[in-house]
C-alpha cells in the first residue's frame, strides 16, 4: 500500500503486466475451448450488432474531425514548402496508416471495451459467471469468444469507415475552405493512396481489436467484490487496453517498416 503512494509508476506497471498476463491466460483458455461446444452463434451476432451500433456515431465524428484537421495541417505545412499538390499524400499517409486505426481503436476501447468489462464484471458480481460454470459452460467460450470474434470483424470495418469519413472531412476542408477543386482533391488522394497503407492500417486494427477484446473481457472477469467493483474494472479496462493499443501500434509500425 505504502509503496503505491511512493512509487505510483511502478505500481501502475506491475498492474499493467499482471492484467496483460491474466488476459493472455484467458485467451489461451478461450481458444482451447473452441472445439468443445457448439459455437455461441446468437451471442456472437448480438455482439457484432452491439459493437457496430455502439461505435457508429463516435467513429463518424472521430473520422470527420481527424480528416478536417489533417487537411488544414497539411495545407499549412505544404504551403510553406510549396508542395500544395501533395495534399493528398499528407492526408492519406497519416489517416490510413496511423490516425484512422489508432483513433478508431481508442474510441472503441472507450465504448465497446468498457461495455465488455462492465457487462462481464456485472455478471461476475451477480454470480452469473459462477452459474455458467455450475451449469457446465465455460465462460470464456460463452462470453469471451463471441465478443473477441465480433470485435476482430467490426474494428477493421469501423476503421475503413473512419478512413472514408476522414477523407470526406479532408475533402470538405480542401474544397470549401482551401479552394481546391473536387477533381484535384480526388486525383491527389488517388495518386497517394497505396494498397500497402490500407493493408498496413487494417493489420493494425485487427491487432488492436484482439487487444481490446481480450484485455477488457479479462479485466471484467477478474472483478471482485460488490457492484462498486464494476465501475473499477470498467475504468481499468479502458486505461489498460488503450495503453496496450498504443504500445502495439509502435510494435506493428516497426514491423511493417521492416517489410517495406
Amino acid at each position, binding site marked *: 500500500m505504502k509503496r503505491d503512494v511512493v512509487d505510483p509508476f511502478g505500481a501502475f506497471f506491475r498492474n499493467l503486466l499482471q492484467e496483460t498476463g491474466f488476459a493472455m491466460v484467458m485467451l489461451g483458455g478461450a481458444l482451447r475451448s473452441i472445439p*468443445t*461446444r*457448439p459455437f455461441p452463434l446468437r451471442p456472437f451476432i*448480438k455482439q457484432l450488432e452491439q459493437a457496430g451500433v455502439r461505435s457508429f456515431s463516435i467513429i463518424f465524428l472521430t473520422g470527420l474531425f481527424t480528416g478536417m484537421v489533417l487537411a488544414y495541417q497539411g495545407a499549412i505545412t505544404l504551403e510553406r514548402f510549396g508542395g500544395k499538390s501533395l495534399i493528398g499524400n499528407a492526408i492519406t499517409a497519416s489517416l490510413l496508416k496511423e490516425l484512422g486505426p489508432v483513433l478508431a481503436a481508442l474510441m472503441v476501447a472507450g465504448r465497446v471495451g468498457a461495455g465488455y468489462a462492465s457487462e462481464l464484471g*456485472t*455478471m461476475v458480481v*451477480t*454470480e*452469473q459467471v*459462477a*452459474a455458467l*460454470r*455450475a*451449469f*457446465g*459452460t*465455460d465462460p470464456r467460450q460463452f462470453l469471451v469468444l463471441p465478443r473477441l470474434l465480433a470485435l476482430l470483424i467490426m474494428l477493421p470495418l469501423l476503421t475503413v469507415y473512419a478512413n472514408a469519413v476522414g477523407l470526406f472531412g479532408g475533402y470538405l476542408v480542401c474544397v470549401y475552405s482551401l479552394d481546391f477543386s473536387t477533381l484535384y482533391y480526388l486525383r491527389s488522394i488517388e495518386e497517394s493512396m497505396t494498397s500497402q497503407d490500407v493493408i498496413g492500417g487494417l493489420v493494425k486494427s485487427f491487432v488492436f481489436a484482439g487487444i481490446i477484446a481480450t484485455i477488457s473481457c479479462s479485466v471484467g472477469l477478474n472483478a471482485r467484490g460488490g457492484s462498486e467493483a464494476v465501475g473499477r474494472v470498467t475504468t481499468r479496462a479502458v486505461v489498460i487496453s488503450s495503453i496496450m493499443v498504443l504500445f502495439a501500434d509502435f510494435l506493428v509500425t516497426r514491423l511493417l517498416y521492416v517489410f517495406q
Partner: protein
Amino acid sequence: MTAVDIDLRNVEIGFGGPPVLHEFNLSVPSSQTLVVLGESGSGKSTMLGAILGLIRPQRGEVEVFGERVDALSERQLHPVRARIGMVFQYGALFDSETVAENVGFRIRQQPRFDAARFEREVQEKLEFVGLAEFRDRLPGELSGGQKKRVAIARALVGDPALMLYDEPTTGLDPITARKVLEVIRRIREEFGTTSIVVTHELHYAYYIADRVILIRNGRVVFDGTPEAFRAADDPYIVEFRSMEAE
C-alpha cells in the same frame, strides 16, 4: 439408503486472510435435507462453492457422488455438476435471456440441441414452480421471489440428485418465502433429492430441515436435529437463536 452424496474432509479455504473454512468436516447422506446456519461471512456460500468445484480448497478433500471434485479439471467436473442443481443467492439469472431460455440453459448448451426436450422440460419445470405463464419475460421484469423460483426451475432441469440453495428466502416477504420453501419441500418429497439449504432464518430452517449444522470460525460447531438445535444450551447457540429469531 445410507449412501453418502457429499463428504468434505479437513477442508481449508482462505482468500488471502485468515481461512474462511478451517479443518471443515461434513458428510451428507442421500435424500437428506440439510440446513446450514451461520452468521453472514461465516463461509456458507464458500462451502457450496467447494461442493460445486467452483472454489478449490487449499487443503483437504471434497468428495461428491464419490468423485474428488477438488482434483478434477473444469472439463472433468461437467458430469458431476450435471447431477447438481445450484440456486444462487439472488438467482443469478442471465439478464439478457428470457425465463424459458434461462430455465432451458443446460439443454441449449448440449452439443446437439434437442428442441422437443427443451420445450417439454422448460414447461414442466416452470409449471412445477408455478410460473409457466412467465416463460417469455426477461429476468428484469420479475419480482425477487419469482426470480428465485425461476432459478429453482433452471436448477431442476436434468433432474439433479442434489440441490444446493444459497439463502433462498433472504429478502423475501413471509408469504413469498413460504412459496419458495414449499417448492423446496416438494422437490425433496417428490424426487427424494438431497438438499442443502443455506439460510439464517431459523423458523424456515425448522420447517424444512432433517438436520441442522451451524458454522462458526470456519468449523461445524453444531450438528444435529432441528429439535436438538432448538433445545441446545451452548451460549453461542442461545445467542444465535435469540438474534436470528427476533
